[in-house]
C-alpha cells in the first residue's frame, strides 16, 4: 500500500488513517502525535498526546503545569498505534524534538517536524533514518540561507559588548529552544556573567536546567535596577524588543538571534541593530543534504519555501512534491512560539 493511500492532509493537519491519529494537529483531535513543543505544533486540548517526555514537560509547563492525556514515548522506543508502529527519533531542533518514524504496510515514513543538523548543546542531535517517504520542513529552503558557524555569531555579540560596555545587550530569542541555546553557546564561549531574563523566558530556562542542561546563573530583568544591567546581556522574546518593556534597560543594543537575520533588509526593517544568525532550523545545505541522505523514494515538503526545495530535488532526480498545510508559522519572526 502506498503511503499516499494512508496519509492524508486534513483541516487539522497530517492524518494517519490506520492509526487514527494526527501529527502536530492545528485543532483539537482525539489523538495527537506531537513532534516538538513550539506553540504552532504543540497545541493543547487533544484527547491524548503522544510525544517525548521532554516535549510533554514543555507542553505542560506552557499549559500552567499539567497536560491532560499526556502519553510519553522516549526516543528509540516503539509504540503500536492502531496498525501503525511509531518510533520517535531526535530531530535536533529543540529539547525533546522528534522525528516521527512510522511503519505500515511494508513502508517506512518519517515526518521530521522541524529539524537542524548542526550540533546543539541543549538537545540531542538529528539522526538520519533511511525511509521510503521523508516529510521535510522547508522554512529556510532558499540557497541564500546558509547559517554561519554558531561561534562566529556569538563572537559578534561578545565583540559588541566590548565596544559598547555601557549599553545593555538585549537579545531577542524564542522562549523555547533559541534562548537556551544562545545562553549555552555563551557559556561555551567562556561568558560567565549572570544573564538577565524577561519573565516569559524564565519558565523554560528552569525546565532546561532541570533536564540537565547547564545554563549558569540567570536573573530576572523585570524589576531589576536599570544601572545593574549596563553592559550585561538581557534576553527577551522578540516581541518584547521594541515594546514598552524594553524602556527599563540602559540604552540597549537590540540583537535578534534568528535565521532570518541572514537577510540584512529583514534585520533593518525590524530595527535590529545586531543581527545574530542563529537558527534551530536546517539551512539550505542541511535540507539538501538530508533529503539525499535518507534515500527516500519520495520527498514531501511542508511549510516554508516548498517551491525551491522541490525544484532542487527534481534537479537531483528525486521525486518531490509539496504538501500544503496551512497554519504553521511561515514567518515566525513576529511570533513568540515558533521557530526561526
Amino acid at each position, binding site marked *: 500500500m502506498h503511503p499516499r493511500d494512508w496519509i492524508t492532509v486534513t483541516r487539522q493537519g497530517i492524518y494517519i488513517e490506520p492509526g487514527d491519529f494526527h501529527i502536530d494537529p492545528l485543532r483539537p483531535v482525539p489523538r495527537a502525535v506531537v513532534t516538538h513543543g513550539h506553540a504552532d505544533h504543540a497545541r493543547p486540548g487533544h484527547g491524548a498526546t503522544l510525544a517525548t517526555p521532554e516535549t510533554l514537560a514543555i507542553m505542560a509547563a506552557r499549559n500552567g503545569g499539567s497536560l491532560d492525556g499526556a502519553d510519553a514515548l522516549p526516543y528509540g522506543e516503539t509504540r503500536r498505534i492502531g496498525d501503525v508502529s511509531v518510533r520517535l527519533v531526535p530531530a535536533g531542533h529543540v529539547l525533546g524534538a522528534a522525528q516521527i518514524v512510522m511503519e505500515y504496510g511494508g513502508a517506512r515514513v518519517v515526518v521530521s517536524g522541524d529539524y537542524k543538523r548542526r550540533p546543539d548543546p541543549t538537545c540531542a542531535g538529528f539522526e538520519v533514518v533511511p525511509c521510503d517517504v521523508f516529510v521535510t520542513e522547508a522554512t529556510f529552503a532558499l540557497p541564500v540561507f546558509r547559517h554561519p558557524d554558531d561561534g562566529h555569531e556569538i563572537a559578534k555579540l561578545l565583540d559588541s559588548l566590548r*565596544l559598547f560596555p555601557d549599553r545593555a545587550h538585549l537579545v531577542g530569542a524564542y522562549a523555547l529552544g533559541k534562548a537556551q541555546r544562545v545562553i549555552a553557546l555563551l557559556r561555551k564561549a567562556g561568558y560567565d556573567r549572570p544573564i538577565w531574563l524577561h519573565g516569559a523566558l524564565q519558565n523554560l530556562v528552569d525546565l532546561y536546567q532541570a533536564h540537565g542542561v547547564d545554563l549558569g546563573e540567570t536573573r530576572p530583568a523585570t524589576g531589576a535596577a536599570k544601572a545593574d544591567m549596563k553592559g550585561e546581556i538581557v534576553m527577551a522574546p522578540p516581541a518584547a524588543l*521594541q515594546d514598552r518593556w524594553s*524602556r527599563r534597560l540602559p540604552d540597549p*543594543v537590540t540583537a535578534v538571534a534568528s535565521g532570518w537575520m541572514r537577510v540584512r*533588509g529583514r534585520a533593518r526593517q525590524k530595527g535590529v541593530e545586531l543581527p545574530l544568525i542563529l537558527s534551530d532550523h536546517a539551512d539550505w545545505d542541511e535540507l539538501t543534504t538530508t533529503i539525499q541522505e535518507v534515500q527516500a523514494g519520495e520527498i514531501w515538503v511542508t511549510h516554508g519555501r516548498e517551491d525551491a526545495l522541490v525544484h532542487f530535488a527534481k534537479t537531483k532526480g528525486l521525486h518531490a512534491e509539496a504538501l500544503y498545510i496551512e497554519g504553521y508559522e511561515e514567518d515566525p519572526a513576529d511570533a513568540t512560539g515558533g521557530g526561526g
Partner: protein
Amino acid sequence: MQRFADLLDGLVTMPSRNGKLRLIEDYLAHAPDPDRGYGLAALTGELDLGTAKPKAIRELAEARCDPVLFYLSYDYVGDLAETLALMWQGPEDTPEDPPPLWEVIDTLMAAPRTRIPELLAGWLDRLDATGRWALLKLITSGLRVGVSGRLARTAFAGWAGLPLNDVEEAWPCVQPPYEPLFAWAAGGPKPEVRDMPAFRPFMLANPLEETDMPALDPADYAVEWKWDGIRVQVARRFGETRIFARSGDDITHAFPDVVEAADFDGALDGELLVMDASGEPAPFNHLQQRLNRKTVSAAMLRKYPAFVRAYDLLQDGPEDLREHPFRHRRKRLEALFGTPRDRFDLSPLIPLNDWSRMAELRDEARARGMEGLMLKRWDSVYVPGRPKGPWFKWKRDPLTVDAVLLYAQRGHGKRSSFYSDYTFGVWRDDELVPVGKAYFGFTDEELRQIDRWVRANTTDRFGPVRAVTPGLVFEVAFDSVHPSPRHKSGLAMRFPRISRIRWDKPHAEADRLETLLKLVEAAPAADGG
C-alpha cells in the same frame, strides 16, 4: 577586506551616531595599512569604483547559480548584490586567503572593464558571505550604510585624538589612502594646506532670540540678508578650484559652471544660488534640481545656472584672513568682488542699526524670497563652529498648518519602543490626504503622550507602522512648501516639525489642502530631473 566587510555589516544596522563612530574608530584601531585608508575613502565616498553594473552581477549569477533558485532568492531578498553574495558558492576548500581591500581597489582601478567579471568571480570565491556582500556593494551602487563624509572624518579625529577642525581642513588636501593623515595621527606633522584649495571649517550663527536683543547693541553688527540657497566655501589656489558644502563634503563636480568662472585666488564663504531669467536668485527648489547629482547635463546648466553670492573672505592669495575682524575681511572681500564677476557677486550689507527697522525688514523676508537676516559683529574673527555672540541668524517665522495624524511609525535606537515618526494629512473635500511627515518638535513627555494615544487609537498595523483613527491634530511648522510629483498630495514641505499638539482641536477643523496650496512658492517647470 574582511575587517572592512565586518565594519560595513555593523554600520548598516547601527542607527545611532555614537554607535557608528565607535564602530569606525574600532576599525581604524585594528585594520592594517593601507586598507584602513581605503576603507575610510570608501565611507566618505572618495573612491569612484562604480565599475560594475547590475547587469554584470546578473550575468555572474546566471553563470554560477541555478537560475530558478537565483530568481526565487532574488524575489525574496529584493537586492541583487545581496542575493548573489548570500548564495554564491565558492570552491569546497578555499585555499587562498581573502584579498586585502587595497588589492581589490588597486586592481579594479587598473583593470579594463572586460576583465572585471573574471576578477570578481575570483574574489567572491575567496570571501565569506559578508565579504562578498561588501565587495559587491563597493563596486556597484555605493555603500549606503548611513555614514556621511563628516561622520567618517569625525571618527578619524576621535580615534587619532586630533581636533576635528584641523582634520577637516587637511582632508581635501590628501588622497586615499591618506598616508599623511595616518602619519599625522601617529605623531607626525600636520599636512601643509596653505597652498592647497583646502577646506576651512565653517563659522556658524546662533538663532537670535527676542531675549538676546536688550543685551546687544545693533551698531556692533553688520546686517545682511539670509539667502535661501546653500552655504558653500569656494577655495581656489594656483588654478585649482574646490567647492565645499557645509558638511565639508566636496561638491565641486556638481557645479562646473561655477568652477569654470572662478578666477580669484583664495577662499571665500558665500551662498550658492541659482539665478532666474532676470539674473535674480530663484527659489530654493530650483537650486535643488542641481544638488546631489553625480553628473550635470548641459540642459541643467542652461536651465538652472548657478552662482555664488560671497559674504566673507577667509584667504586672500597665501594670506589667511581668519584672524582678522569681519570689518577687515569685508573690505578685502569688497576689493575682490566689488565689481561683479561672472558667477560671483557680493552679498550687500544693509545699512541698518535699530531693532525696529530690522524687525520690519525681517517681516518682508518671505515676500522677498529670503530666509531672514544675518547679523555679524564687526569685530568678529572667523572661528570654526558655533560660538555664542558674534553671529546671529534671525529667520523669518515659519508657516504653520493644522494637520491630522494619520500614521505613526516606530522610531530607531533610543526611540525604538515609541511611535515617534508621524505622517499627517489635511482635508481634500471629505477625505484626509497625507501631506508630510515629522519626527521632532515635541518634548520627551509629549512623545510619551502621543505614543499612548497612538496605541489606544490604532486601526491597522503594517510592520512598524500603525494607522490611527483620525482625531489628533498637530500644528505643523515648516519653512516652505513646494509642488512635488513624488507625494500623493502633490506637495512637499521643507523642514516640517510638530510645533504644537492640539489636543483641544476637533480634527474636522484641521486645515484644508487649498490652504496649503496658497502657500506654494513659484516652482520651476517640470523636467526630466
